[in-house]
C-alpha cells in the first residue's frame, strides 16, 4: 500500500510536468496546426536563464520569474523568426524546421554554458514527504508542482475563454480570414499564442529540472516525448485533455516504472502512444475530425 501511494503521488507530480509540456504543444497546435518539436529545447533555454539569474542574484524566485518571462519572449521570438513562414508550409516542413531549431538551441546552449560547471536548479520546496499515520504521503514540492500546473492551466483557460484577447486568439486560430475581416490582428494573436506556450514550457522546465541530476541542454528530450504522448492521449486539441492526458500518462508510467522496472519508462510511453494512436487517434478529449487532405 505504501508503494502504491508513493507511485500514485509521483505519478501525479510527474504527470503534472508532462501536462505542462502538453499544454504548450496543444496551444500551438490549436492555433497553427504545427507541432513544435523545439518546445523542449526552448524550455531548457528558459531553465538556463533561471539558473543564470539565480546564480547572479542568489534569489531562487527571481530566477523563476526570469524563466517565465524568457519563456514568453523565446516563444514569441521563435514564432516571429522561424515559424511565421513555416506555419503555412506542409506539415513535414514545419516538423523539420522544429527539429532544426531543437538542434540549434541545444547546440547554442552547449556553447554558451561550458560542461565544466555542474548546474542544478533546486526544488522550490522540500521534497521530504509529510507523514500521515506513519505513511509518507506527499511532499511540499509535489503540491507545488501540481498546484503550479493547475494554476497555469486555469490561467490559460481563463485567458482563452473569458477575456477579449482570448476571444481574438480563438478567432484567429479557427477562422483566420474572418477574424482578419473583423479587425483582429491575426499574426499578432499567433505570436501571442506561441509566447503563452513558451511560458507553459518554461513552467515545465522549472518543475522537471530539479528532479534530474544536472541541467544539460538535453535534459528535456525525454520529457518532451512524454509531454507529446500526453498531448496525443488528450487529443492535441483540448487544454483540459492535455492536463488529464498528462496526469494519466504520469500515473501509467509511474506504475510501470515502479512495479516493473524504471528502464521501461520510455518503452512504456512508446507502447502507450502507439496504442492510443491506433485505437483512438483523435485522443480522448478531441471531437472526431475527418483527416484533411
Amino acid at each position, binding site marked *: 500500500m505504501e508503494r502504491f501511494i508513493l507511485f500514485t503521488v509521483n505519478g501525479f507530480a510527474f504527470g503534472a510536468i508532462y501536462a505542462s509540456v502538453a499544454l504548450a504543444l496543444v496551444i500551438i497546435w490549436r492555433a497553427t496546426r504545427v507541432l513544435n518539436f523545439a518546445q523542449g529545447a526552448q524550455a531548457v533555454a528558459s531553465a538556463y536563464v533561471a539558473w543564470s539569474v539565480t546564480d547572479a542574484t542568489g534569489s531562487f524566485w527571481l530566477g523563476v520569474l526570469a524563466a517565465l518571462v524568457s519563456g514568453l519572449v523565446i516563444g514569441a521570438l521563435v514564432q516571429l523568426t522561424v515559424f511565421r513562414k513555416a506555419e503555412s508550409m506542409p506539415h513535414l516542413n514545419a516538423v523539420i524546421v522544429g527539429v532544426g531549431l531543437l*538542434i540549434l538551441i541545444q547546440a547554442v546552449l552547449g556553447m554558451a554554458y561550458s560542461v565544466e560547471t555542474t548546474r542544478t536548479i533546486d526544488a522550490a520546496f522540500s521534497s521530504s514527504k509529510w507523514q500521515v499515520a506513519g505513511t509518507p504521503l506527499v511532499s511540499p514540492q509535489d503540491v507545488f508542482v501540481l498546484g503550479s500546473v493547475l494554476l497555469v492551466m486555469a490561467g490559460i483557460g481563463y485567458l482563452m475563454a473569458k477575456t477579449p484577447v482570448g476571444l481574438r486568439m480563438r478567432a484567429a486560430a479557427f477562422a483566420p480570414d474572418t477574424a482578419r475581416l473583423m479587425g483582429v490582428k491575426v499574426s499578432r494573436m499567433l505570436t501571442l499564442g506561441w509566447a503563452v506556450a513558451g511560458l507553459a514550457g518554461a513552467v515545465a522546465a522549472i518543475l522537471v529540472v530539479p528532479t534530474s541530476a544536472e541541467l544539460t541542454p538535453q535534459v528535456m528530450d525525454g520529457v518532451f516525448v512524454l509531454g507529446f504522448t500526453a498531448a496525443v492521449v488528450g487529443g492535441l486539441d483540448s487544454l483540459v485533455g492535455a492536463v488529464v492526458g498528462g496526469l494519466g500518462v504520469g500515473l501509467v508510467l509511474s506504475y510501470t516504472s515502479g512495479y516493473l522496472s524504471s528502464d521501461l519508462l520510455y518503452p512504456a510511453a512508446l507502447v502507450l502512444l502507439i496504442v492510443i*494512436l491506433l485505437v483512438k*487517434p483523435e485522443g480522448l478529449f478531441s471531437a472526431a475530425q475527418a483527416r484533411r487532405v
Partner: protein
Amino acid sequence: MNVLRSSTLLRNLAATAIFLVIGFLAVYSVDEYTAGTVAKLALYICAALGLTVLVGGNGQISLGHAALMAIGAYTMAKFLPSRTDDFGQVSIGVIVVGLILAIAVTTLVGAVIGVAAARLRGPYLAGATLALGVAVPGVTTYFHDTFNGEQGLPIPVPRLPASLESAGWTIGHVVALIAIACAAVALLLMANLKRSAVGRHLAAVRDHEISAQLCGLSVPREQVRAFAFSAATAGVGGGLLGLVIQGANPHSFGLVLSLSVLGAVVIGGLGSLRGAIWGSIVVVYLDLILKDELKVDPNAPAAAYGLLLIVVMLAMPGGIQGLLTRLGGRLPRRSAQPQGGN
C-alpha cells in the same frame, strides 16, 4: 550516350560504377584515420538513401531512424562474435552474411513499424518515431542479458586478407571498402527503385493519397513498403557503424544520430538520391572540420547544421541538389515536382 539516356538500369549502373571508382580511389589514397571518415561517410550515405526515399519519396517521416540502425548493429553483434578466428577477427565473407542478416532483421522490424506508421500522419508519425528512438536505451537496459545495457556488445573486426596486408592496407581500409561497396549497392537499388513502378507508386501516395487510392493503389501497403526499404538501408548503415566503432551500444545510436541522418537528407534535398550523398558529405565533414580541424566548440557542428536545416527548409526546400539543378539552368527532366530529380 543514347543508350544511357534510354536505359535507366544502364544509367544507374554507370552512376554506381563512378561512385565505386571514386570511393575506392578515396580509400586507396588515404591513411587509416581518414579511411575511418570515408567509412563513416559511406554508412551515412547508406542510411540517408533510404531515409530520403521515405521522407522525400513517400512523404512519411522518421525522427527515430537511429533505432533501426541500432537493430542492424545489434544483429551484427549477435551474429559475428561466435564466428571469429583465433585472433578474434572474422572473414569478410562472414561480415557480408552478417550485413545481409542485419538487412533482413531491420527490414522485418521496419515493416512492422511501417504498419503502425501507415495509420499516422505528419506530426503524429514524427512524434511516434521520436518516441521509438528515445526508447532504445531503456530496452537495452531492461533486456540486459541480451543487449548488455549501456555497455553494449562488442563487434569483431574483419580479417585483413594477406595480399592486402602486404600492400600496406589496414583493417580500417577494409572496413571503408566494405562500407563503400554497401553504399554503392544501396545507391543502385534505390536509384532503380525510384524509376520503377514501385517508386512511382510511392511518389503517387506522397503527392495525393486519394488520387493514388482511386488509381487502385493501396496507400497503407505503399507506406509500409517505403518504411521497409528505408529500414533496410538503415540496417546496413547501422551494421557498418557497428563495424566502425567495433560495437553496438545505445549511446552511439541516440537522438543525435537520428537527427544527423535526417539533417543530411534535408540539406541534400528531400527525395533526391544525389542529394543524400551531398547532404551526408556536408554533415560528416562539418563535424570533422569544425571539431577536429578548427577545434572550435564541440557543439559548433550541431549549431551549424541545425541552422542549415532551418534555412534550407524555409528558403530552399530543394536542398543542395535543388540548388545545383537550378544553377545548372535546366528543369528537372522527368518530374515537375520540386522533390523530384534523381
